[in-house]
């Protein structure tokens, strides 16, 4: 058990509200007034669920097996889209590579930096709230505004990034216009918003009961032991959740590559054409090209299955990774 969201939402810990008296369950004959009211209140959400969750899921699965440009009727082509993806499309594997590189760089870095910052900010010291606010600041700013700002920061000639490097007498970089430095640059932009990760870790850290720390100190444990033996196990459920969230977010990165790549298509070359951008480019092509809803949907399903596998794998292993205080 742990802090539930109501407690996060500033509520005093109420005793669990006593449930209303149970009604006999098999009241099949007529709807109770509660049932009618409940479905009335849920109507918008139920319509939304059908239209925005169930329908797209079925429809995009169907599209993925067709050739379809969004105008004529879809023609069924079986697994042709997938065959094309894995064998003939020259941009698919590069886009997988770009996606993986981004995930591999971003996810561990954001978790480690976020946790370090949370530990750093989990102190009672004058000014700590100011520091927290400043770290969190980039998260508050509109994504597009920060991305465009960084596009200028990374300008090789007049940008701040190379200027700072040259002040420090370090070699400068091509940043976004170099095919090997483009993804790392995007990761830097994303890491600037690490405050969102930090804030969640900070909440977790503050939920660790202080007696445990006191007890450990009395037993003579050093700060490192305390961190690895007490703090980390206790926040491990949050850690797992964060791994999943960050993986899912990183796999669906779109805005940064779209806005930051010099051609808006994931360039230079295919270096920043992550899967989401590839889906976008095929599904919603720029002037003069034909939309390929079928092929784009097939890529959607590849990405979706990867996400499902990631979530399932994490859920499967989380029982091993996380500490639980329920005596087994």
């Amino acid at each position, binding site marked *: 058990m742990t802090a539930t969201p109501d407690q996060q*939402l500033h509520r005093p810990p109420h005793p669990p509200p006593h449930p209303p008296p149970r009604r006999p369950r098999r009241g099949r004959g007529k709807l109770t007034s*509660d049932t009618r009211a409940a479905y009335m209140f*849920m109507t*918008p959400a139920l319509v939304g669920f059908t239209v925005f969750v169930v329908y*797209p899921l079925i429809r995009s699965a169907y599209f993925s097996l067709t050739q379809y440009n969004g105008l004529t009727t879809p023609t069924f082509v079986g697994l042709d889209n997938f065959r094309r993806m894995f064998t003939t499309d020259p941009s698919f594997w590069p886009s997988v590579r770009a996606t993986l590189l981004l995930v591999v760089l971003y996810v561990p870095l954001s978790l480690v930096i976020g946790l370090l910052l949370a530990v750093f900010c989990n102190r009672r010291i004058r000014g700590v709230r100011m520091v927290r606010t400043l770290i969190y600041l980039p998260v508050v700013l509109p994504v*597009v505004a920060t991305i465009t700002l960084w596009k*200028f920061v990374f300008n090789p000639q007049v940008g701040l990034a190379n200027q700072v490097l040259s002040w420090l007498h370090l070699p400068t970089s091509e940043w976004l216009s170099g095919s090997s430095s483009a993804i790392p640059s995007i990761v830097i932009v994303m890491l600037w918003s690490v405050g969102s990760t930090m804030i969640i870790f900070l909440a977790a850290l503050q939920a660790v009961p202080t007696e445990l720390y006191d007890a450990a100190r009395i037993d003579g444990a050093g700060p490192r032991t305390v961190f690895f033996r007490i703090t980390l196990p206790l926040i491990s459920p949050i850690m797992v959740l964060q791994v999943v969230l960050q993986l899912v977010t990183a796999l669906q990165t779109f805005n940064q590559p779209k806005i930051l790549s010099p051609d808006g298509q994931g360039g230079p070359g295919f270096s920043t054409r992550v899967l989401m951008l590839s889906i976008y480019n095929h599904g919603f092509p720029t002037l003069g090209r034909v939309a390929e809803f079928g092929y784009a949907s097939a890529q959607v399903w590849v990405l979706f299955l990867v996400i499902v596998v990631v979530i399932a794998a994490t859920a499967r292993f989380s029982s091993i990774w996380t500490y639980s205080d329920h005596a087994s």
Partner: protein
Amino acid sequence: MTTHPDVATAAEPVPSPQPAPATSVPRPPRRTVRTASWYAVALLISSVMVLPILWMLTIALKGHSAVFQVPPRLLPDEFHFENFIDGPKAIHFPRLLLNSLVITSLSVMGGVMTSMMAGYALSRLRFPGRKVWFYVFVGSMMLPPVVGIIPLFQLFKDIGWYDTWLPLIVPAWLGGNPLFIFLARQYFLSVPYSIDEAAKVDGAGHVRIFFSVMLPITRPAWITMAILAFQFSWNDYLNPLIYLYSSEKWPLSVGMASFVSGFAGQTPDWNFYMAANLLYMLPPLAVFFVAQRYFIQGLSALGTVNQR
């Protein structure tokens, strides 16, 4: 994680009401060194976070030629405050702003209202299937939005909503965000049932209870949601990019991005652009500082959502 009696106060995130009296304990000198090094690191971190924004501010104040000076200079020679007038004008900022305001306020209202309604049903009404629907809604939080892109585009196009704001607003009115339904339900669960019972005795129906009793009590919950919904909508880039063809209907996100990603066909005057970009940042910043307490609570609630 463990249950702990003061978990509520301990988990109450960042801006705790009373800052700890850090100075009340006399410190041995070793501590002073540690404190000093903490401040040094804090300064370094803060400057990484703030430097790009400050630099942006100086660009916004520079003249046209100073922006492209090589090597770049941090401070402008002369301050061009008029950039904050001319810049927004040059990129049609007022129109983009108005579009953003309309889209965002409508989708915030819809998202908050319909999520609160669903949360009310799931938490305070007893009916067969309420567990099932709860899991269905929570489960749909896991579905990545990418799955919906193409079928929904097709659907909205078929019913003639392409190049209108409807695809950006109507979904919010249909349950909005499953996360909000979840938050609403969790919050409603913490309200004592005796309140509904009292209202029922007084002859109030569910609609009355919801609007006149529950909404006032649950203000912190829906303020959090409203702030989050504002953020999501103000920041949303992909959806308006897909659905809005005419540039006069664009919200700020697409409009601002178009000036740098080249598909508007021209390179912007960066000083003009940065001045407008600062204005684009202002509303969320203002919301953040005014509602900081709720905001960070809402986000940390996100972080603890799946813990049990």
